[in-house]
Every structure is written in C-alpha cells, then in structure tokens.
C-alpha cells in the first residue's frame, strides 16, 4: 500500500496526464456495463432503470428459439473474416505501392481520393447500390443495350456476398492505408540504403525489409478487429439489403435479425441480450487468439 502512494507521489505528473483517459473509459465504457443487467430483466417504466423483474435467460430465447442462431452466427463470422483479411491485405498492398511511388503530388492526391469513400454515409452507398443493380439500373441498362439478357440481382442471393464485401473494402481502404503508411514511414531508411548497396531490387526490398517489419502492425490490427467479429456492420447490410427477404439467406447477420425482430415490438431486455451474446463471443475469441499468438510469437501478442 505504501508503495502505491510512493509511486503516485513520485510520478504524479504522469498520473495526472493519464487521468482524463482513465476517466473517459470509466464513464463511457465501464459504467455503461451495468446495463448488461437489463439482459436478464423484464423492463418496466414503473420501476425505472433497475426496477424490472429478474427473469433469467428468457430474453435470450428469441435468438435460440427458431434455430436461426447458427446460420446468423456463421454468416456474421464469415463476412467479418472476409472483411478483415481482404481489407487488411489490400490496405497493406496499397500502402506499399504508395510508399514506393516517387511523385509527391500524385501520391498525395491518390491518397486523398482513396480516403474519400470513408466519409460517404452508408445511406448513400445503399442508393448507389440500388441504382447500379436495380431493374432499370446502370448494369441492366448496359446489358440491354448490348443486347444481352437482363439479370435480376434482387431475386438471386449469389452476387450479394461479393457486392457487400466489395463495398466494405472500398469504403475502408483509404483509412487502413493511412495506418499502414504511417507504419512504413517509421521504418528507418538505413535498411533500404544498405540493401540497395548490396544490390537488392525493389521487389526484394519490399519482400525482405518492408513486409517483415510490418507484420507486428498487421497482427495487431487483425487482433483488434477480431474482438468485433460477431458485431456485424449493421448500416452496411441494412442499407444495401434493406427489407428484401429474398436475399436474407446469404446476407442475414445477427444485427439485422435483431433489428427486424425487435423493430415492431421494442424491448430493451431482448436488445441487450443480443448485444451481450455478441460481446461475450468477441471477448472469448480475442482471449483465445491472443493466447495462441503469445504461444507462437510472444512479442506480437496484445497482452
């Protein structure tokens, strides 16, 4: 105990500096966790926030009842794995290309253009998609004018997996590239110069210097995204697929299912229950993966 006070006194400036961040997390991340309790109660306006009757696991029933949970979890996880891997690989590639590009002006403008989709709202993305793929949309108009058969995108589930992944990657590409670019910039020039003197060409330098030095960043980013693997991108799926039940078989994720089930009959308890299921799953997953990584390569692990 004495040690703690000594520590506090000695580094009081440092502790003061970290205090706002601590406060932020306590207020916005730890205190709201109390809300987990709602998942096990029947909410009533009479009793206020904590006056609801305790009903155990009843709120979780709508997830398990109809036997759709497995399909939803599978869809959500598979989509997220595709998102994480494809996004990160493409971001990494773009960052390397950009860093090796000579012209400063071209590099900056390319980077800005790639970044722009990040600021486009999903509502607009949904409108783009509809105008591209609808009956009278760009693609079908093109097919008609080429004398080809129209394709009813909105009646077939097959193309939507690719469309959704494409738009997700497109939207996040610029953002991720910036992070990788920052990591590349922190690689000392000395390595490259030494390699050049030894006669390594650009591919060899990328292969043997840039890539290995980026692995920690890559692993870290993947680890951070794994925690949310069961949290679907609600706005992406909802804006692109909307109410079209024809496409749900391959595009329904936990978030859209919960929305659809509860939009008609609002229920705090059941909403919280679904959120808790997602968070718990993510938590277990991240602990597990981190454990594995620590066994394999201790330095790369998150904690």
């Amino acid at each position, binding site marked *: 105990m004495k040690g703690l006070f000594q520590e506090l006194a000695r580094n009081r400036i440092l502790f003061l500096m970290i205090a706002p961040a601590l406060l932020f997390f306590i207020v916005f991340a730890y205190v709201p966790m109390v809300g987990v309790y709602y998942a096990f109660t029947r909410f*009533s*306006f009479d009793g206020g926030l904590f006056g609801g009757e305790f009903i155990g696991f009843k709120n979780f029933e709508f997830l398990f009842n109809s036997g759709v949970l497995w399909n939803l979890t599978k869809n959500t996880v598979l989509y997220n794995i595709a998102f994480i891997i494809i996004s990160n690989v493409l971001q990494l590639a773009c960052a390397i290309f950009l860093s090796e590009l000579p012209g400063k002006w071209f590099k900056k403008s390319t980077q800005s253009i790639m970044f722009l989709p990040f600021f486009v709202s999903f509502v607009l993305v949904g409108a783009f998609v*509809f105008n591209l793929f609808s009956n009278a949309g760009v693609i079908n108009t093109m097919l008609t004018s080429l004398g080809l058969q129209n394709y009813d995108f909105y009646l077939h589930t097959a193309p939507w997996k690719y469309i959704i992944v494409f738009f997700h990657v497109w939207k996040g590409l610029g953002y991720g590239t910036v*992070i990788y670019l920052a990591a590349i910039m922190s690689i000392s020039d000395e390595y490259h110069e030494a390699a050049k003197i030894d006669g390594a060409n650009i591919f060899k330098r990328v292969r043997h210097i840039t890539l290995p030095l980026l692995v920690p*960043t890559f692993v870290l980013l993947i680890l951070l995204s794994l925690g949310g693997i069961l949290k679907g991108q609600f706005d992406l799926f909802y804006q692109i697929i909307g109410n079209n039940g024809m496409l749900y078989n391959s595009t329904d994720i936990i978030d859209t299912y919960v929305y659809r089930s509860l939009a008609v*009959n*609002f229920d705090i308890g059941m909403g919280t229950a679904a959120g808790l299921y997602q968070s718990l799953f993510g938590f277990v997953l991240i602990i597990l993966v981190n454990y594995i990584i620590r066994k394999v390569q201790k*330095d790369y692990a998150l904690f």
Partner: protein
Amino acid sequence: MKTKIKTMGTVLVSTAIMASMLAACGSGNNNSNNSSNASASPSTEASGNTNSGNTAEAKTPDTSKKVELTWYLLGDPAPDQQKVVAEWNKMLSADLNTTVKLNFTTWTDWQTKYNLLLASGEKVDMIFASSWADFYKFANQGAFMPLNDLLPTYAPTTWSSVSEQDWKEATVNDKIYAIPATYPEYTPDGLVYRDDWRQEFGLPEIKDVDSIEAYLDGVKKNKGVTPINGKAYNEVFTMFKASQGYQQIGGDSGVIVAKSYDTPRDIVAYPFTPEFEAWVKKMKTWSEKGFWKSDTLSDQKEAGDAIKTGQGAVYWRNAPGAGGFITGMEKSNPDIKLGYFPFSRFHNLTMPTLSVNNAMAIPKSAPNAERSLMVLDKLRNDPKYYDLMSYGLEGTDYSMDADGKHIVTPPAGVEAKDFKGYGIASWGYRVESMERVKQAGGWSGFDALLEEFKSQSKPNIFAQVIMDYAPVKSQQAAVNSVIQQYGMPLMMGLVPDVDKAIATYRKQLEAAGVNDVLKYVQEQANKSFDAQGLK
C-alpha cells in the same frame, strides 16, 4: 518488445488523428445536448413547488411560478417554427406564466427516438401519443401518467367537451392515460389510380380484385408502364386483407387476423388458410405479368412519385391521404386525372379510427404535468392558440378566407412557388370544430366518400384489443423476422416455386412459435370482446 511498443505507437497515433478529425464533425451535437439538459433542470426544481401549492388550494390552479415545459411532437418542424413558437411563448407567458420548448423527433427513426424518450425517463411534460405509436402498450407498461384526477381541475374545458366514448378509448386498466384529439376519421385503405388511362383504353370500372387485375393488365399492355412502380408491398398486402375481409388484430405487421367482422372470435394466422394459398398463387401471376418490378422489396421510392412523372398508375393511400394526394396532383399535374377505390367497398364496411389514433399524453417523468395540461386546454379551445399552432402565422403562412372561418394558402400577396407553408404534426391536439381546413385537403370527391363510409360504419371492436405480448415476446420477435424473410417475397410473387415457398413459410412460422402467439392473441381478444359485451 521494443517493436511492439513502437507498432502500438504508430497505430495509436494515427487512430487518434483520425478520431479527432471525426470528433470535430460531431461536436455540434454535443452542444445541443447540453442546452437541453440545462433547460430541463430548472423546471425540475419548480415542480416541487407547484405540487405543494396545489394540494393547499385544489380548485384554482396556481400559476405564480414561472415554468418552462418540454413538449415533443412526432415529425419535422416547419421552416418558420422558431418564429411561431416564439409568438406562442409570448402568449403563454402572458396568460399562464409558462413557456414551452417544443421539440420534434423528425421522421427519421422516430420509433427508436420515441421509445428512448419514454424509456430513458427524460423530463418531458407532454408528448404525442397514438395507437399506431404503441399507446396501449406503453400505457399498460406504465410509461404515461394517469390523468383522471388532474383533468377536471387543469383542463376543465377539454374534460367536459371530449365525449365519453373517446375517453373510454384512452383508458387502460381503468385509468385515462391520454387526451385524445377530437377529430373523427375514417381511414380505410385503398388505391389511387390513373382514371384517364382507364377511360382511354376502355378498361372496366374498378370494383373488385378482377377489375383491378384487368386495369393493371390494360395499363401494362397499352402503356408499357409498370403500374405499381416502386414499393408495392402495401398495395398488395392491404388489398389481400381487405378483399378477404380479414381484420388484423394487434398491429399492422403481424399474421393474426379475425376471419371476418361478423365472426370476431374466429381468429387464425392467415398464412395457414387456403385463401392465402390461392392469393399468393394469383400474385405470382401478377408479378410475372410485370405489375410491379422484381426489385420492389429493395426499392425505396413511393409508387406515388412514379405517377407524377407518368411512369406509374397505382398508389396505395388511405382515404384522407388519397384526397391530399389527388388535390396535390390537381395543382402540380392538372393533365393527370386520378380516381380512388377504397377497399372498404369489397365488403361494404368501414370502422372509424379510435380516438387515440392521435392524442397527447404526459410521460411518467413529467415534472410539470399540471401546467402542461393547462397549456393543452388553452391550445385546444382558444382559436388564437389553435390557429397559431396548427396553421402558423397569419400573413406569412395563411390568410383568412372572406367567410372568416376557413384559411387560404398561400396567403394573399405570396407567390405560390415561393410559398413553403406551415405544417407540423399537430394531429395530437386537433379539434374538429376548431379546424379551418377541410379533411382530405379539400378534395371534391371526399364528401361523397364520407357519406358512404358513415352509412356502412360499424364500431371499431378490434383496435381495443390491448396486447403487450409480454408472455410470448420471444416468439413474436421470431415471427416478425420470419414474415419479412419468407412472407414478403411470397406475397409479392417473387419466389420461383410458390408451393415450396408456402410450405417453407409455414414451417418457419411454426418453428418461430406462431401458435403460441396465436393462442395469446385469441385469449386477449376474447377477454376484450367479453368486456365489450360481444357474442
């Protein structure tokens, strides 16, 4: 270890930069939140005082304390809302020593916002309430304040002028939870259609499903236009319900119906009926004939917009809505002639809407319920207040007609194209005798329709069946999801194999627990029918 810290560093710094960029965009919202909190707190303090003052002298409301009320209406504010509210507050502070902060949920995501307003216990003194905004459910769960004791003292005029039946419809578990608007309406579903095209191609008068089919077919063949061009689910689903004579119980989105008005206790889940089977087979052929597009379920456009551009022919509206749409079109596209077919003609039956179809209620958390009621009483019964909050400012938003009873828009001296108009969701405090505009936007055909509806009117026995689905809520949630996934494509005839799709739909409904929901609805309905004294 060193690399790890360094990597962490780069990632953190770049994320922090990104976060601060985004935070800058969002800061506007924070400010508005703060101000609303600040305004709520003084009124909380005041409430204690008003309460104690009132117990002492129960009959004469005490307005010596200045109070700021917070009201919420559904929908969007009018462009000159601030000016109107400022004017209103001037009048209110003179008469009642009160000001009102008038808030709007906007239509985007209003349901979520509405739910949260009530659930979070935010200090709100009055809010719009309606049977279509779950009034009965919220009242049953205790979200609103019971008003029986307050009404005679604080809203005496309203208390005596609203009819017994209207109060009864606002009553849940023997307590009045809302002040219903006094504005009887008939809102049967129906179809607005291009009557000029019907005459041009010599198509039959629309009077049943077959003539509708003939009309749609004629338009498609002769004009090459997709008749229902946009979202078509409402058109088809309401037609299905009305043509079968089904009466939906417990909200517009479920699958539980009474098979007819005359046999209210014959309650079934409609996807299991042979009529449904026949209907969706018919819809499959309609869809194949191209009466709507195959992307209709993803389309966000209203079918009515396509009529305006000559790209569509049919649009689903309730009767007053149809009137508004038709008069609007008469102004903007005088060359298009529209007709209207109310689905009530399938079975010659209409039911008036419940009084709480539009109402004002006081949330449980209201700090100043008494003063809020006094303001509402004034608003409903004083023409000066009523005109201001229903039609806006005289001179800029409207001007009085020569007869002194009705209003004219746009007002004298304002160009029609520059005119924005004043319109907010004022339905909650609407009073028929105070109105200065005619129902259905003054559509000439509406009076005849109203006569028709009145002549075949029967009491609304179904809307009073109150359900909060508490015992079957997990089944109900699962069923809702199944309807969207399997029911809607089936209804629109989009599935490749109808028989197989019907079998899947039924199987999924059963797995989701539709039978439990059905049993629950039957119990609640029978209870309500017993209370209403029906056979």
